């Protein structure tokens, strides 16, 4: 005898989830411009509230009327469950709000990685909960034989969805943890290369897919938990060989995964809000990964395979011997004061030394002297997409002074001073000329076309993430300003008087 446990969901509930999904679409749509983005964020909050309230109303045993879940139909008001749920929301909410308020803008990449790992973990936990109590999710069929206890069979389609959701969630979790440790400096940004890693990774992925297929035949706990365990392992293995500078791609990719995990869970739960959101977030992360790869002229596969930025040092010794011009803060101040236009090119080094506020002050002094100041942002400057824009916005730099690579590149030729601060490879002219260079073909900012290039750098020894020497340092029109970025900018501000 079959008892179908799929409960009919009232139409208003379906509509509410749909509205919530539409709110999320509009939240992303709002990000087409800074003005509309704030309204978009509020719509996102409204969408989330609708989804949460709808779920609470329909699933929590309030004891009022009839609950759509049969087991709890007309159940007594269950204080302990309600209290526990509200408590969990409260604890999470307080941690989230405090973190969001305290976090430094320069630490945004780490924070996003940490948040990704939470989504991944939540997906795994929801998957496990659905596996342990499939009837609550309406994804099981109870078979009651004439003799013996009844058997609860999870629907085969749901098993695949659940398996995929847990696998993607687990990969998102462990991958994000590694990304977080690398970005936060708890773990070296250098790639860690295991022997035979491609074989191990491919083998593990095949094993996971095989187990998900087998899961449709056998819903034994070992199958489910092996899928989860192997997926946690592959998440670690996939990210450890990827170097710190490829993090913009990794973090976008994990963003995408967290979306696919939510979508897979949405399939399991037949929930349109989760499916729409998952698809949005999944495509968002995928597009960002694509933009980042294109900006580095690298294929997605080569980033994922890892190992980039591992080889350094070999060229360094020779590089140090080449003659270069070194300048002081006073020289820099003098040159920029005389200029008609200065273009500032920030990079990860600016974030590391927290130089954005000093930089804004320098720009203000220059503007007071009648100099036009603009900012040029390379798509992969920093450790995540848009990292530099946020830091400049934090320092109150108006966003209409900040330009993307393709919008400003032609202007360097008519610019008196290009002020490069903490960026390196994204300015390397070798990307345009030297076919043997590892960064050949990568779109770069044409800073060398400016009359003078001021290059702020800690020392001559270090090289950019690609491990290549920058031709720009030794040009006649380049002046090296060797110091900590923030200190140098502060001295220039002083010299500007």
């Amino acid at each position, binding site marked *: 005898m079959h008892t179908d446990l799929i409960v009919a969901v009232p139409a208003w509930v379906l509509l509410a989830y749909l509205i919530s999904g539409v709110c999320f*679409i509009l939240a*992303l*749509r709002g*990000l*087409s411009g*800074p003005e509309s*983005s*704030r309204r*978009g*964020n509020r719509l996102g*909050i409204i*969408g*989330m509230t609708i989804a949460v309230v709808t*779920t609470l109303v329909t*699933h*929590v045993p309030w004891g009022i009327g009839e609950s759509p879940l049969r087991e709890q139909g007309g159940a007594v008001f269950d204080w302990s469950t309600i209290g526990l*749920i509200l408590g*969990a929301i409260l*604890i*999470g*909410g307080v941690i989230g709000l405090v*973190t*969001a308020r305290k976090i430094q803008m320069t630490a945004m990449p780490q924070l*996003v990685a940490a*948040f990704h790992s939470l*989504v991944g*973990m*939540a*997906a795994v*936990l*929801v998957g496990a909960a*659905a596996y*342990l*109590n499939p*009837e*609550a999710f309406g994804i099981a069929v109870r078979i009651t034989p004439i003799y013996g206890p009844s058997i609860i069979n999870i629907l085969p389609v749901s098993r695949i969805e659940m398996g995929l959701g847990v696998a993607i969630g687990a990969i998102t979790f462990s991958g994000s943890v590694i990304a977080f440790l690398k970005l936060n400096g708890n773990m070296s940004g250098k790639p860690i290369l295991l022997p035979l890693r491609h074989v191990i990774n491919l083998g593990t992925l095949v094993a996971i897919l095989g187990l998900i297929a087998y899961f449709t035949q056998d819903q034994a706990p070992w199958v489910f938990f092996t899928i989860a365990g192997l997926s946690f392992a592959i998440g670690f293995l996939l990210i450890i060989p990827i170097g710190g500078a490829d993090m913009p791609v990794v973090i*976008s990719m994990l*963003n995408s995964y967290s*979306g696919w*995990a*939510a979508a897979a869970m949405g*399939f399991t739960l037949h929930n*349109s*809000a*989760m*499916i729409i959101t*998952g*698809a*949005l*977030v*999944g495509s*968002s*992360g995928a*597009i*960002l990964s694509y933009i980042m790869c294109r900006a580095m002229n690298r294929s997605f596969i080569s980033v994922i395979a890892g190992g980039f930025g591992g080889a350094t040092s070999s060229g360094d010794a020779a590089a140090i011997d080449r003659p270069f011009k070194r300048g002081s803060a006073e020289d820099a101040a003098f040159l920029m004061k005389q200029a008609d236009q200065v273009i500032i090119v920030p990079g990860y080094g600016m974030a590391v030394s927290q130089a954005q506020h000093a930089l804004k002050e320098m720009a203000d002094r220059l503007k007071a002297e009648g100099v036009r100041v603009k900012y040029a942002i390379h798509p992969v400057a920093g450790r995540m997409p*848009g990292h530099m824009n*946020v830091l400049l*916005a934090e320092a109150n730099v108006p*966003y209409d002074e900040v330009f*993307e690579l393709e919008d400003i590149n032609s202007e360097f030729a008519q610019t008196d001073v290009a002020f490069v601060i903490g960026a390196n490879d994204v300015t390397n002219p070798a990307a345009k000329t030297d076919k043997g260079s590892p960064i050949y073909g990568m779109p770069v900012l044409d800073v060398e076309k400016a009359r003078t290039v001021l290059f702020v750098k800690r020392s001559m020894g270090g090289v950019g993430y690609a491990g290549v020497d920058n031709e720009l340092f030794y040009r006649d029109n380049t002046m090296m300003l060797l110091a900590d970025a923030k200190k140098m900018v502060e001295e220039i501000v002083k010299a500007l008087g």
Partner: protein
Amino acid sequence: MDFISILSIFVLACFVGYYVVWSVTPALHTPLMSVTNAISSVIVVGALIAAAAAGSASSKWLGLVAVALASVNIFGGFAVTARMLAMYKKRDR
């Protein structure tokens, strides 16, 4: 809902996502990541269902932990996005 209707929603939403995300200005890519992070925590719906359901204590507790984790993300994600977006200002003339 049957599998095909769900799949249809998913595929169409992927297309919507594709076009919407390409229209996001590159300057806002970091807020895009933090807000997508916040909305992907809609997975809290599944966590709430598990936490509210009777029948399995372990499932209930897994659900509760998931509710807490997703809540960190929802509140933290929207708050940090709002904080970032508030910083983007035009030149005052």
